[in-house]
């Protein structure tokens, strides 16, 4: 298991070197979105309209943060469970999305899209929300403010800690890790 520091946006070369279980520290710009925002983003793609941000090379963080306290860019901001984004993720990956950050299992369609179009699913530590917020230096709502915590935010991060769960080769850390430690 290797350790990498990567800058967003990511390209094919960046994601191809990653293997499930690798630790990655991400820096740069990424966007936040949960299911309500994903539905709207995919509706825009299907009707041929422009997205509120360029999806090519982008990393999307599945998070609905708490409101920021005065003087902070963001409140606590840990990952939400990712399967709710499974119906929408493959089409975004097809349009150039390179990374997703969340927690929990993905379905086969998402894993297949990661292989086919070269994208990676990263796991962040659920419940480590005050710690992860330290890596988020700026946050700004850029779309759907009416969704409250589910609005799309542009965030700037420094050394955001994640682990590769699903890589571009079809590996799955959750399955491998469990097999390694399961006692029958």
């Amino acid at each position: 298991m290797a350790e990498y520091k990567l800058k967003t946006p990511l390209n094919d070369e960046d994601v191809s070197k990653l293997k499930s279980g690798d630790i990655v520290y991400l820096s740069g710009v990424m966007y936040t979105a949960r299911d309500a925002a994903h539905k709207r983003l995919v509706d825009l793609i299907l009707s041929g309209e422009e997205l509120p941000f360029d999806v090519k090379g982008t990393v999307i963080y599945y998070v609905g943060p708490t409101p920021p306290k005065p003087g902070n860019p963001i409140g606590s901001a840990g990952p939400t469970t990712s399967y709710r984004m499974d119906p929408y993720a493959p089409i975004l990956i097809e349009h150039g999305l390179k990374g997703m950050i969340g927690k929990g299992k993905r379905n086969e369609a998402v894993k297949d899209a990661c292989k086919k179009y070269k994208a990676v699913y990263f796991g962040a530590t659920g419940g480590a929300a005050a710690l992860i917020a330290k890596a988020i230096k700026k946050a700004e709502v850029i779309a759907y403010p009416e969704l409250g915590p589910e609005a799309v935010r542009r965030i700037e991060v420094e050394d955001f800690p994640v682990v590769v769960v699903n890589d571009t080769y079809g590996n799955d850390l959750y399955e491998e890790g469990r097999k390694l430690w399961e006692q029958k």
Partner: protein
Amino acid sequence: MRVVKYEDIVKSIKDMIIYSTTHLAPDMQKALEEAYENEKSEVSRAVLAQLLENAVIAEKEWKPLCQDTGLAIYFVKVGTDVKVEGGTLKEAIYEGTAKGYEEGYLRASTCDCFSRANLKDKAGYNLPPIIYFDLVEGDKIDIEYAAKGGGSENVSRATVLAPAAGKEGIKEFVRKVVSDAGPNPCPPLVVGVGIGGSFDMSAVMSKHSLFRNIGTPNPDPELDALEKELKEELNKLGIGAMGMGGTETVLAVHIETYENRMCHIASLPVAVNIQCHSSRHSHITI
């Protein structure tokens, strides 16, 4: 008849919410430290270290441990010799909840079931809560509060087994719920199990069992043994912290039964309420 002021209840609820969403409960702190010591997988140990560090930051800055500050769940025991002056107890809990979540910079996580719109203007900030009232002797009001996140709630399950399934059937059901949940509910977990009563009562008891402090034994020796046996078996699943693979998947199993193990002659209701490693729970007596 003892009289308690409405405003005093509102303030107590508000303070309890803000404190317990930002300060890891002492029993959880101890359980996570022990899990860190015992965990054999390196990657799961790294996750547990992050969780302990997270608790330090949250406490120091009074920042929520987790961004999912949950539905507000209350179990309330009201003495028959106490009266609330200035409003009803239910209204006071609603107002305390709205104030706690808003003034504590906590997330409003309630929404309309169908439009999925957050209705904080209409319903109030993170309202409505879930409240279970009970009447008891005495002149006190006893309130237990938990911030229950969606990730662990989504994998919780209830069933009614055939009586012939017995203890083995219960164990198999619990094992299946935890196994199917895998990484999704943020392990290491507290597993609440409600047995008996009716379909709905088993679910309520599974939730209430999550309030017991980890390390406090079940008063029923047979159930205490079953809890320990289940914990050992569940930890063999290999799920580990955040599902990365490891030996510490479950911090505790808590079992509650209805009126000392009672149910209908035709049924064996069982419910499993999964709780994440933040398990924000607290208790006040007014």
